[in-house]
């Protein structure tokens, strides 16, 4: 069983579960994330994305329902280390997840916690730094790095644990466009070259375009789930829950609303240009 499964999961942060109307951060989630895929989770602030992420690696335990990672139940304390090793997590603020004062020591932190023998930690650290393209910064202090570089170190720290899944919870939110590109490219290459399942949580629509699957959350529930083309063809629905769509999608959407017959679900500038060219040449 290589997947992450949510079975009817609800979670509330309130500590009095006997209250009549409990504010659930996520409710009745049924979800399966297959190994090897690249998934993007979209949703506005407070829609429950981070809660969902923390339920996966047992930082939070479901109030009701069950979460399993490769068949291991997160609520079984004996599984917890293995689950956290299998599911790596990178957060939003790069400064608040780097522990050590030297880059390579920080990358070694995870394997050290797992009790990996020293020489193997060394080779894992080299491998991980290489995978994120940060080998030359091995001996730098974290505060000497840019935001994007710090995030790549955080990713390397996760890779050194040899995970099968990596969750990036708004890891690009505090970065400039260049830093965002760095992280997205790194995530993409991990998925394609290392066969690591990536779950990218974001509210930048452009980041969803190249995913295998897009999950849209609103108010603690999954409201849409499918290929990017499918999700972005429902512009009205996305707008209703306060989400934007990529600019090319928006353009074609507005044109079709004006009566032009253009296809829905187009997400890249190139596809949009091709569609427009075809439409104009037909001269309708």
């Amino acid at each position, binding site marked *: 069983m290589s997947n992450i499964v949510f079975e009817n999961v609800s979670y509330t942060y309130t500590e009095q579960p006997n209250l009549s109307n409990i504010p659930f951060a996520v409710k009745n989630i049924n979800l399966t994330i297959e190994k090897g895929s690249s998934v993007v989770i979209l949703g506005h602030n407070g829609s429950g994305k981070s809660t969902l992420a923390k339920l996966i690696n047992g930082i939070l335990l479901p109030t009701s329902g069950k979460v399993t990672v490769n068949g291991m139940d997160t609520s079984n304390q004996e599984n917890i280390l293995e689950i*956290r090793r299998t599911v790596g997590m990178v957060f939003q603020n790069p400064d608040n997840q780097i522990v050590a004062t030297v880059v390579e020591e920080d990358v070694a932190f995870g394997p*050290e916690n797992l009790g990996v023998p*020293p020489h193997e930690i060394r080779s894992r650290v080299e491998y991980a730094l290489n995978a994120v393209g940060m080998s030359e910064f091995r001996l730098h202090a974290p*505060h000497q790095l840019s935001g994007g570089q710090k995030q790549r170190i955080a990713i390397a720290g996760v890779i050194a644990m040899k995970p099968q899944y990596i969750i990036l919870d708004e890891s690009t939110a505090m970065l400039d466009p260049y830093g965002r590109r760095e992280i997205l490219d790194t995530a993409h290459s991990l998925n394609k070259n290392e066969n690591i399942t990536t779950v990218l949580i974001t509210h930048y629509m452009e980041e969803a375009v190249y995913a295998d699957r897009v999950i849209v959350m609103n108010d603690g529930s999954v409201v849409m789930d499918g290929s990017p083309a499918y999700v972005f063809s429902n512009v009205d629905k996305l707008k209703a829950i306060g989400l934007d769509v990529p600019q090319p999608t928006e353009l074609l959407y507005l044109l079709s609303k004006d009566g032009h017959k253009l296809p829905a679900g187009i997400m890249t500038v190139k596809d949009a240009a091709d569609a427009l060219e075809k439409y104009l040449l037909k001269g309708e």
Partner: protein
Amino acid sequence: MLKDITLGQFFPGNSPLHKMDPRMKIIISAIFIVAIFFAKNIFSFALLILFSLILTTLSGIKHSVILKGLKPIVFIVVFTAIINIFWTKGETPLINFGIIKIYPEGIYTAAFMIIRVVSLVVGTSLLLSYTTSPIALTDALERLMNPLKKLKVPVHEFAMMMTIALRFIPTLIEETEKIMNAQKARGADFESGNLLNRLKALVPILIPLFISAFRRADELAVAMECRCYHGGDGRTKMKILRFSVFDFVWLFVMLIFSVSVFCLNYIPTTIKLSF
């Protein structure tokens, strides 16, 4: 800049002192401190000076740096020296102004006291601060204290706290600067007014700083848990510290040095000290 504070006084380099195992540096410093307090006559003090000079030369640290490091103790050294000079009583006064009598014993005592304090500061800062990064020192302390774990001393936890503190000092300093600038942009004034006003002006800096530090601590704890941190049990380390032959040579030299200091004390001299 302030941010480099984590490096402490560390000057990276390749000298024999830099290469010494940090655990051995701690052991050697301890022996050195004991030897300093055993020194009792002019010969043993001469050896102290010689040894400090050798350490300085071997470290490759600039003399100006070492002198600067002595600055904070100048006042206390001069003060105690003066007290020693005027208060020590001997047999025949060197200078006699009626009430004020200066005896040669006083001058010797003052001189020896200066040598003691200066070689103590120079020796330990050369070994533990100028040639050792704080992180190496923390690591070495954790390993040296390891046996105390059996007595339920939370050695690993203390070392972890030190590491995290060192890691976050630059971050928090940067943040303080940001908050100060933000408050200045709103017209806050930190530089004028009496002490009370200035302290009051610090409140709008400290409150956001504390709130943010707590948030950071919270997020860091979760991030550490996500990376399988569960205390020191079953934890390994990437870096293996191994004593080299040179470390034992150092230890040997140090032992010879302390024994010599001890023996030199028995050479009879005419100078009488008050301690």
